[in-house]
């Protein structure tokens, strides 16, 4: 499917998909009393786009920013791989749905992650393995931006460019905030895209909340490796969370949850009206 086709034919279903997923994410985190919402809301559109419009049967995906597990679980729920009952167990005792993706129990999750700087190396191994075995399919890896403080990410970048892993696509969720400051304050790597290019990898920058842009970037990539710098907003879609560092950590109270729900509903009504 081409970009124009996605934007014309599926924009209605994209709005609906985004609304349902975002509301379910808010509900899951609210009911479980769990934070990490900011980074989940920055990654959610990327994950929905991957699972609904990009990943094919032979493709594999590694969520390197394991703290985006909530968004991953909701994306898997939106495809039917997880149920409402599963999501209700999020963060509870005896759950399969731990705060970071688990090693066992969910077949769609290839690797447990959570400590940053592992996912890209794992994705390199999967991509190299596919090539050595002559298997079809691509490997996608989503990292955070703060994660690129980790030296192991750069080790993996050297490896994937040197070995020309043309079946690997790296996406960076650049929401500009990390654990205890903005990415510019803590360890400024901007312009990140230029650093990727300097390592010899094709790189492009997109709006990470415009699914048609991510879809088009992947569709137009005939041979990787490719790095996609996805500019996103931490807490996207909830006014009091957007670009606020504390929403890396805070759970919602009842009043905040209600406001967040209303804003998501309202945004979708407005998007539909714009069509």
């Amino acid at each position, binding site marked *: 499917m081409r970009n124009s086709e996605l934007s014309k034919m599926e924009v209605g279903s994209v709005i609906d998909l985004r609304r349902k997923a975002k509301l379910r994410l808010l509900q899951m985190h609210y009911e479980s009393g769990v934070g990490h919402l900011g980074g989940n809301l920055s990654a959610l559109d990327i994950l929905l786009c991957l699972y609904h419009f990009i990943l094919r049967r032979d493709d594999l995906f590694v969520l390197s920013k394991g703290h985006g597990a909530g968004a991953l679980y909701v994306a898997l729920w939106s495809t039917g791989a997880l149920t409402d009952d599963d999501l209700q167990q999020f963060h509870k005792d005896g759950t399969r749905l731990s705060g970071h993706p688990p*090693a066992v129990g969910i077949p769609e999750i*290839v*690797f*447990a*992650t*959570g*400590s940053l*700087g*592992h996912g*890209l*190396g*794992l*994705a*390199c*191994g*999967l*991509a*190299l*393995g*596919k090539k*050595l*075995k002559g*298997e079809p399919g691509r490997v996608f890896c989503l990292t955070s931006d703060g994660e690129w403080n980790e*030296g*192991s990410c750069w*080790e*993996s970048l*050297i*490896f994937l460019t*040197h*070995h020309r892993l043309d079946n690997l696509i790296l996406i960076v969720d650049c929401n500009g905030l990390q654990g205890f400051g903005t990415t510019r304050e803590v360890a400024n790597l901007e312009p990140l895209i230029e650093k990727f290019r300097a390592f010899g990898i094709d790189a492009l920058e997109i709006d990470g909340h415009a699914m048609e842009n991510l879809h088009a970037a992947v569709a137009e990539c005939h041979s990787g490796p490719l790095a996609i710098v996805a500019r996103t907003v931490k807490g996207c879609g909830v006014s009091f969370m957007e670009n606020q560092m504390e929403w890396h950590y805070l759970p919602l109270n009842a009043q905040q949850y209600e406001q967040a729900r209303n804003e998501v509903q309202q945004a979708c009504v407005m998007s539909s009206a714009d069509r």
Partner: protein
Amino acid sequence: MRDVFCRSLVSQTVDPRLVFLTGDLGFKALEPLRDALRERFINAGVAEQNMVSVAAGLAKLGLRPWVYSIAPFVYARPFEQIRNDVCMHKLPVVLVGNGGGYGYGVMGSTHHALEDYGCLLTLPNLRVFAPAFDEDVSAIIPLLMQVDDPAYLRLGMAERPAECAIPAYACWRRLIKGDGPTLVVIGPLAGGLLRVASGLSQARCPDLWLVTELPMQALPEGLLESIRRSRHLVVVEEHTAAGGLGQMLSYRLAWMGHAPHRFSHYHAHGYVSGLFGSQRFHRAESGLDPDAIVASTCNE
């Protein structure tokens, strides 16, 4: 052991699942393996964290990756990758550490591996193989191609006494039967101990046992009988006391109700004088000299 390791692994290269990753080491040693494996031999560069994650990815697809470096660079530097990416997923990645213990001698403390299997055995699913003789390496490598768990292979310099027969490979072996103390050793120090023991009378000769795989499999009945008889267990290892064989074995025996009357433990003490030298120098500083061990434990 490195040459026999290379030769043995070359004989496994017919298995298309075998992939070998090196952290930029193996010059004048691993060239035959490189030539046999071609695109399945990967120099991953001086980047051990990535190398272990890549190996986990390969193993996830059903391949059999071996990851090679100087011992500390393969277990200490990428410890979290071993823990999270390999062990938590129970993937059949073989970590190969060359130069167990003080193997790299005067190269210095950064190149020594004094706490390798102790650290690694805290991780889930991982098995350690510490061969004592070159023949053990030849036996272990086909075994490792069949093991479905993560594994660590600790290579060193074999010291087999030419005149002594060695029993066929097993995880527990009695190297020589004597009426002296029960002596349990892991790794190449076994060679020196066997050499010294074989020159002793039956009465003074230790009952010398070699263990090669950790965690220990069931203790042989002959070993338990020996400890009951001798009432003195001596454990020898080129590894720190913390997390070492001595702790594992004494714990197991206490738990089984077979605690020995007397327990002696010869192990690595780090850098006693603060000076550096050969593997022999460091062993001697830690009291790991086979002649001295036998002299002090087998003279009653």
